[in-house]
């Protein structure tokens, strides 16, 4: 029997953190909430497994990441075309932020799920290759490849964008 109270206490404490990760993966608030909801709904019948983990929140985050890359979430591909540009928390230079970080944010949305998830886990959660491999249920070599290809794609798009921008200035 699932312990509803323990589950509720966990969600109360960690929902914002899980939502943040889901938002980085999916790109929209609606899709993020759906991903967190789907993940919790899948884990809930055997919640004692999550509760018994060394770090329950890491356990759930791993399930969330895995669910995202598994492609079982409905409408995932469609959502990515509608990535929301987040409001920044009082940036020093709004124009610069939009030009650089906003661009990167949009580009993340164009990457394949597994590449994006690997980048989020590496550059947001600071996970190691083995940890990312566990999250994405793949080999360590695959993780390195995903991150490398993701960065190459971003860098290529960055160069192209700057070339266009320079051409426009001239």
């Amino acid at each position: 029997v699932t312990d509803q109270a323990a589950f509720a206490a966990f969600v109360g404490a960690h929902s914002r953190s899980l939502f943040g990760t889901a938002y980085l993966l999916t790109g929209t608030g609606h899709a993020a909430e759906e991903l967190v909801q789907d993940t919790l709904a899948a884990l809930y019948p055997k919640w004692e497994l999550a509760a018994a983990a060394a770090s329950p929140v890491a356990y759930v985050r791993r399930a969330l990441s895995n669910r995202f890359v598994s492609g079982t979430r409905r409408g995932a591909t469609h959502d990515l075309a509608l990535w929301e540009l987040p409001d920044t928390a009082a940036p020093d230079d709004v124009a610069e932020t939009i030009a650089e970080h906003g661009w990167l944010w949009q580009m993340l949305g164009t990457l394949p799920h597994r590449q994006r998830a690997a980048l989020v886990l590496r550059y947001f959660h600071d996970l190691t290759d083995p940890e990312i491999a566990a999250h994405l249920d793949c080999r360590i070599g695959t993780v390195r490849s995903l991150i490398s290809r993701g960065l190459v794609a971003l860098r290529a798009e960055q160069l192209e964008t700057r070339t266009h921008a320079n051409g426009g200035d001239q």
Partner: protein
Amino acid sequence: MSDLETALRATLAEAEVAAPAPADLAERLIAATIGSHGAALDGEGRSTHRGFTPAPGSRRWLAPLLAAAAVVAIAVGVTIGIRATQPVRPAHPTPTTTSSQPTPPAPSTRALTPLRCVTALPTSWQSRNLDGTTIAAPSLLYGGVAVDASGELISVRYTSSHAYEVLLLAPNTPPRVLYRTPPGQPSPEQAIGIRSVGAEGTWVAFTVVGGGHRAQIVLVNLATNARTVVRTIPEGVDMLSTGRVLAHDVFDSGLTVAGGALYWAEIQAGQTHGRLYRYDIATGQRQVLDTRATSGPLTAARGAVYWNRGGRVGSNEQVDIGSWPHGAFLPAGVDWMMHPALLPAADGAYVWQDASGAIEAQRPAAGGPVTIVPASRNARLERVIGDFLWAAGGRSTIVMDLHTGAAARWGLSDDQGPGGTATTALFAGRSGFTAVDASKLPALHC
């Protein structure tokens, strides 16, 4: 690290901070999950974390709503008892010596220093080689507990028989059950829960809700084991809380014991503000401190109690430091719905995050606020314990010494930092907690 990787880190950190999480996210997730697996919430059924008196019109889906609301109340309402250390009074006051007026804290002359540098986390922090008390914790405790100087700890446990227990935990002794609700009944309408625990010295107070009865505030004297029902909440009235997270797994209570008195706020259904009550434990007298309260009371350092007062919850409003000194105000302009809390530091200062994201600190009646962390750093204030604040910077958590301005990357397995209060840090382990007097935490230096 390349420029692209650096920019990517910053982009992800900013996006995560700005992620548009609904204010009632936890409640929605809990209700939807449990509803889909258990009592099957009505399609229109939404729970509310604030009220535990269902509106008359809600009877149609009362049973499933209560099933979800019972656990939602745990997530957002159950608070953790804090047997707060009171440096200016005995740790265990007796009823006859309880003062009706809180003793003002000793003034502090220590400066509040803005963020100056990022340094290495001292080895004593890293190894957890800290001078603390270790307490074994039974299973099914709600996280976020706190201790007093005698090393005792208050928490709430949900038992396998669907009953709730308020526990007193102490080193090397079995848990002592202070209160136990009747075992859960087959019907969710009969569920009885514990909500809003507060404690100080020999006194522990909590709210018993559900079971088809009106909510009651119960006060327990640890010295005599005597229990008193201080208040039965009238029909159509709820207790006010803010739903703010005070620390890791610690939610504000809406019920506070401080300075020998019990504080709570009640609001009539449909009203925008309510009454803030103070119950003097020694005399049994109840008085109304405020008729325009918009949040429940919170305990600040050294017995101070504060609450929100404003036209409506969510507006930018001033904060009344209720009992120390009465009527003192911190600056307006803080969006309390966006940012989690006004957090007390050990020396009487308060720390908060303003609408721009900057982390500010101020000692009441000691000049204007000091910007501790500028908004451009994108740090999210998590908690304040002693002289230290924890802030999530997106990809990492930092701990900062409020008085030296030095910060260090936390980087420990409990990456969100310890739980605790203004006076006690609690480090969770596999088998229990280590409680450390916040004044003994090693300082950080540039």
